[in-house]
C-alpha cells in the first residue's frame, strides 16, 4: 500500500514544486536580468564618462593655456590645433570671445581648430561666419558653473553625425571673463559604444538626448514587449535605454526550471530510492533479525531436542540376572557428545535389555541441521530396532535399509553397533565404516603384557563394511570379542582423531592411543572407577587448546566390572529352541575368535547332538555351556540316559549306499569334533564336544 502511494505523492509534489519553482525563479530571473542590465548601464555610464572626460580636458586645457596664447590670433590657432591633434575624437575646439572682449571690440571673434574629413586640421575664425552669440552652448556655458555646460546633441549641418558640445567660461590672467571655450564631439562613437553595452544579442540599446532626440541606436526596433530600463548619463544630457525581450527571461526561467526540475526529479528519485531502500533494508533487517531470532530459538530447541535424544552421560548397567541383594556394578557406560554447532551429526545411544547392553556410536556426514536430522533418525531407528532384534548385524541392516531407502540428500552415517552380554563379556559388534574401538585392558587381561612392554590397549579389529545409507541391501559382517573384567571399551568419532591444535596438527590415531592407554594404569591399580571419559575428554581438549573445534566430538566408554562368568544357555527341550542354541554358539565362536569355517562345522556338530537329545531323551531342558581353550561345548539334559558315543561307528559311505539315514547325524558329529565324551551324573546326560582351535 505504502509503495503504491509513493509515486502519486512524488508526482504531486513534483508538480507543486515545479509551479513554485517557476514562479520563484521567474521573479528571481527577472531580477537578475534587470541587475545585469543595470550593471551594463553602469558600464555604459563609465564608458561615457571616460569618453567625455576628454571634453572636460579639452575645455580645461584651453582655459589653462589661454592666458599664454591670447596675445595674437596665430598663437591661439596653433594652440587649438595642437589640442585637436591630441584628442582623436575631438571634432573641433574653439574660443568664442565676448563681443566686448574681442580684439576688435564689438565684433564676434571665435578662433577655431577643425578636423577636415581628410583628418587635416585647419584653423579659422568661426565668429566671422556664424552668429554664435545665440547658440545654446554659448548661452549655457555663460550660465553654468565652473564644470561647464553640456549641450543637447545637435546637427551642425556640416557633419553628418550629431554633435554635442562641452563649453565653459574662459577667463584671462586677471580673472576677467573674456568668453567661452568649447569642444565639439561627434557622436559616431556612441553607436560603437551601444554595441559594447548590449547585454544580449537580442537586446536593444538606444541613446537619446534629454529632450528626446534619438542620438544613436543599436537596432532600429522599437521596444514593445521588452523589459526596458533607462538611465540618464550624467553629466551629459543623454539618456541610455536598454530593452531585453521578455522571452529571454522566460527562456532563462524555463532553462533554469528545467534544470531545476531535472535535478529535483533526480533528487526525488534518489530520495525515493533511498527511502525505499531504507524501508526495505529496515524491513529486511527486521525480517532477518526476526528470522535469525526464530532460527536461533529453533536451533536452541533443536539442540535441546538433540540433547534430549541423547542418553545421560553416565549409567551403571546391571544385568537382569542379578538379584536385588547382589546388585553391583556390572558395567558402566559413559558417553559425552560435544557438538561443534548448536546441533551436530554425531550420535550415541545405549540400551540395556535383559543381560545385554546394546550401544551405538555414529557420525553423520556433513554438519549442522541436516546432519542433526539424520542423526536423530538414526538414533530413533536404533531404538526401534533394538527392541525387536538381538544381533548388531540385524539392527545395522534394518537401520541401513530405512536410511538408504529415504536418502535423497545422499547422507551417510558411519557407526558401530554393539551388544555386550554383561555377565559373560561376550561382545558382538558390527561396524559400518566407523573408526576401530579401543579396548583398555583390565588387570586380568593385561597380566604379562606389561612385562613385554606392550601397550595396555588393544585396537579392535573391524570389518570394512559400508557406511549406513548407501546400499539398503548391503549384508554387514558381524564380529565378536570377549570383554574381560575391568576391560574398558572406548568408542569415539573422528572429531577426536581429526582434532587439530593451534599449529593445525592432527591429533591422529597414534596420539589418541597414547592418550587412551596413558593414564589408565593408576586407575586400575587402585580399582577405582575413575571417570575415564572425563580424563580422555580433558586430554583431547588440552591438545586442541585454543584452536577451533572443527567437528563434533563424541566419546563413549563401556567398562565391564563384574567377574567373567561361564557362558551358559538353558532352553526348553524343544526343536524350536535350536536357533537359540545355534546363535549362542555362533556368537560365542565369534567372540572367542573361532574361525568361521570351523565354527560352521561345530554348529553342525551341535545341531546333531541337540537333535539327538530332542529326539531320544524326553528331557525338560537342554543346557549349553561353552568354553574355549580348545572350544568345548557341554550339553546337559535331564532326560533318560542315552550315550550317543556308545552307538557303533557308522560308515557314512555305507549309510549313503544303503540309503539308510539313521545314524548320519551322530556320524557327522564324530567326524567334525576332535573328541566327544559322554557322562551320566546326578540324573543328567552330559555330552562334551571338543574342537581344537
Amino acid at each position, binding site marked *: 500500500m505504502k509503495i503504491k502511494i509513493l509515486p502519486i505523492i512524488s508526482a504531486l509534489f513534483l508538480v507543486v514544486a515545479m509551479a513554485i519553482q517557476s514562479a520563484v525563479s521567474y521573479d528571481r530571473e527577472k531580477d537578475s536580468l534587470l541587475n545585469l542590465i543595470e550593471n551594463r548601464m553602469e558600464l555604459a555610464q563609465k564608458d561615457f564618462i571616460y569618453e567625455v572626460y576628454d571634453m572636460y580636458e579639452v575645455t580645461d586645457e584651453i582655459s589653462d593655456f589661454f592666458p599664454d596664447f591670447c596675445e595674437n590670433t596665430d598663437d591661439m590657432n596653433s594652440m587649438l590645433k595642437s589640442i585637436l591633434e591630441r584628442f582623436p575624437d575631438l571634432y573641433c575646439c574653439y574660443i568664442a570671445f565676448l563681443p566686448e572682449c574681442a580684439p576688435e571690440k564689438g565684433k564676434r571673434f571665435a578662433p577655431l581648430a577643425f578636423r577636415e574629413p581628410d583628418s587635416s586640421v585647419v584653423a579659422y575664425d568661426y565668429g566671422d561666419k556664424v552668429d554664435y552669440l545665440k547658440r545654446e552652448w554659448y548661452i549655457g556655458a555663460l550660465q553654468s558653473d565652473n564644470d561647464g555646460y553640456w549641450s543637447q546633441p545637435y546637427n551642425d549641418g556640416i557633419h553628418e553625425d550629431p554633435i554635442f558640445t562641452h563649453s565653459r567660461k574662459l577667463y584671462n590672467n586677471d580673472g576677467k571673463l573674456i568668453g567661452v571655450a568649447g569642444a565639439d564631439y561627434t557622436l559616431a562613437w556612441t553607436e560603437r559604444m551601444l554595441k559594447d553595452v548590449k547585454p544580449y544579442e537580442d537586446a536593444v540599446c538606444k541613446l537619446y538626448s534629454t529632450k528626446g532626440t534619438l542620438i544613436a541606436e543599436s537596432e532600429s526596433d522599437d521596444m514593445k514587449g521588452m523589459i526596458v530600463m533607462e538611465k540618464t548619463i550624467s553629466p551629459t544630457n543623454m539618456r541610455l535605454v536598454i530593452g531585453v525581450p521578455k522571452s529571454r527571461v522566460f527562456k532563462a526561467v524555463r532553462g533554469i526550471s528545467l534544470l531545476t526540475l531535472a535535478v529535483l526529479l533526480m533528487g526525488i528519485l534518489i530520495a525515493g530510492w533511498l527511502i525505499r531502500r531504507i524501508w526495505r533494508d529496515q524491513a529486511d533487517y527486521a525480517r532477518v533479525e526476526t528470522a535469525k531470532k526464530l532460527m536461533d530459538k529453533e536451533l536452541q530447541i533443536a539442540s535441546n531436542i538433540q540433547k534430549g535424544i541423547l542418553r545421560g552421560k553416565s549409567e551403571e548397567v546391571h544385568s537382569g540376572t542379578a538379584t536385588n541383594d547382589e546388585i553391583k556394578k556390572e558395567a558402566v557406560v559413559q558417553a559425552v557428545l560435544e557438538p561443534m554447532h548448536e546441533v551436530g551429526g554425531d550420535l550415541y545411544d545405549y540400551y540395556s535389555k535383559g543381560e545385554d547392553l546394546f550401544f551405538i556410536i555414529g557420525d553423520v556426514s556433513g554438519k549442522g541441521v541436516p546432519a542433526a536430522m539424520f542423526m536423530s533418525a538414526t538414533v530413533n531407528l536404533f531404538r526401534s530396532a533394538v527392541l525387536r532384534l538381538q544381533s548388531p548385524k540385524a539392527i545395522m541392516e534394518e537401520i541401513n535399509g530405512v536410511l538408504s531407502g529415504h536418502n535423497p540428500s545422499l547422507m551417510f552415517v558411519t557407526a558401530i553397533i554393539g551388544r555386550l552380554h554383561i555377565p559373560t563379556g561376550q561382545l558382538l559388534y558390527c561396524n559400518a565404516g566407523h573408526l576401530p574401538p579401543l579396548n583398555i585392558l583390565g588387570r586380568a587381561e593385561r597380566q604379562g603384557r606389561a612385562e613385554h612392554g606392550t601397550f595396555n590397549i588393544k585396537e579392535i579389529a573391524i570389518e570394512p563394511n559400508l557406511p549406513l545409507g548407501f546400499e539398503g541391501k548391503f549384508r554387514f559382517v558381524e564380529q565378536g570379542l570377549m570383554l574381560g573384567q575391568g576391560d574398558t571399551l572406548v568408542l569415539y568419532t573422528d572429531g577426536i582423531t581429526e582434532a587439530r591444535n593451534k599449529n593445525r596438527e592432527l591429533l591422529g590415531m597414534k596420539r589418541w592411543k597414547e592418550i587412551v592407554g596413558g593414564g589408565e594404569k593408576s586407575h586400575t591399580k587402585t580399582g577405582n572407577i575413575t571417570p575415564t571419559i572425563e580424563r580422555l575428554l580433558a586430554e583431547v581438549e588440552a591438545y586442541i587448546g585454543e584452536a577451533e573445534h572443527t567437528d563434533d566430538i563424541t566419546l563413549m566408554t563401556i567398562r565391564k566390572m563384574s567377574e567373567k562368568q561361564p557362558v551358559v544357555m538353558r532352553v526348553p527341550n524343544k526343536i524350536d529352541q535350536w536357533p537359540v542354541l545355534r546363535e549362542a554358539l555362533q556368537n560365542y565362536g565369534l567372540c572367542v575368535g573361532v574361525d568361521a*569355517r570351523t565354527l560352521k562345522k561345530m554348529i553342525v556338530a551341535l545341531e546333531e547332538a541337540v537333535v539327538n537329545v530332542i529326539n531320544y531323551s524326553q528331557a525338560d531342558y537342554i543346557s549349553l555351556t561353552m568354553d574355549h581353550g580348545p572350544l568345548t561345548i557341554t550339553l546337559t539334559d535331564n532326560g533318560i540316559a542315552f550315550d550317543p558315543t556308545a552307538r557303533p561307528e557308522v560308515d557314512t559311505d555305507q549309510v549313503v549306499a544303503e540309503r539308510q539315514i539313521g545314524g548320519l547325524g551322530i556320524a557327522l558329529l564324530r567326524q567334525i569334533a576332535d573328541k566327544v565324551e559322554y557322562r551320566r551324573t546326578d540324573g543328567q546326560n552330559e555330552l562334551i564336544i571338543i574342537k581344537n582351535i
Partner: protein
Amino acid sequence: MIMEIKIQPNGQETTVQLIGLLDTTTISEQADELQKVLDIADQALVMDCSELEYISSAGLRFFMQLKRETEAKGGKIRIINLNEDVADIFRMSGFHNIFSLS
C-alpha cells in the same frame, strides 16, 4: 526368513535355488515348499546351492529323499555352486559318492 526355495523352469531343466540355512528347524518350517520340489522329481533338477549357507544331517536327509524320488520317477538331480563349508559336510557324509557336485 532364514530359508527360501525358488523353483524356476530353465529350458529342459528346472532350477531349484536353496537360500539360507537347511537345518532341522527350517526343514520342518519349509516342509510344504520342500514337498513341491519332491513333486517335480520326474524332471531334470539343478539344485543351485550358491546361497545355501548351512546344512546339517536334516538337510542332507532331504537331499537323500529327493534322490530317491528322482530315481523312482525317472528324473535327474545335479547339485551346483556348493560353497566350501557345505561341500565339506557333503563330503563328510559320503554324499559326494551319490551326487555329482560341481
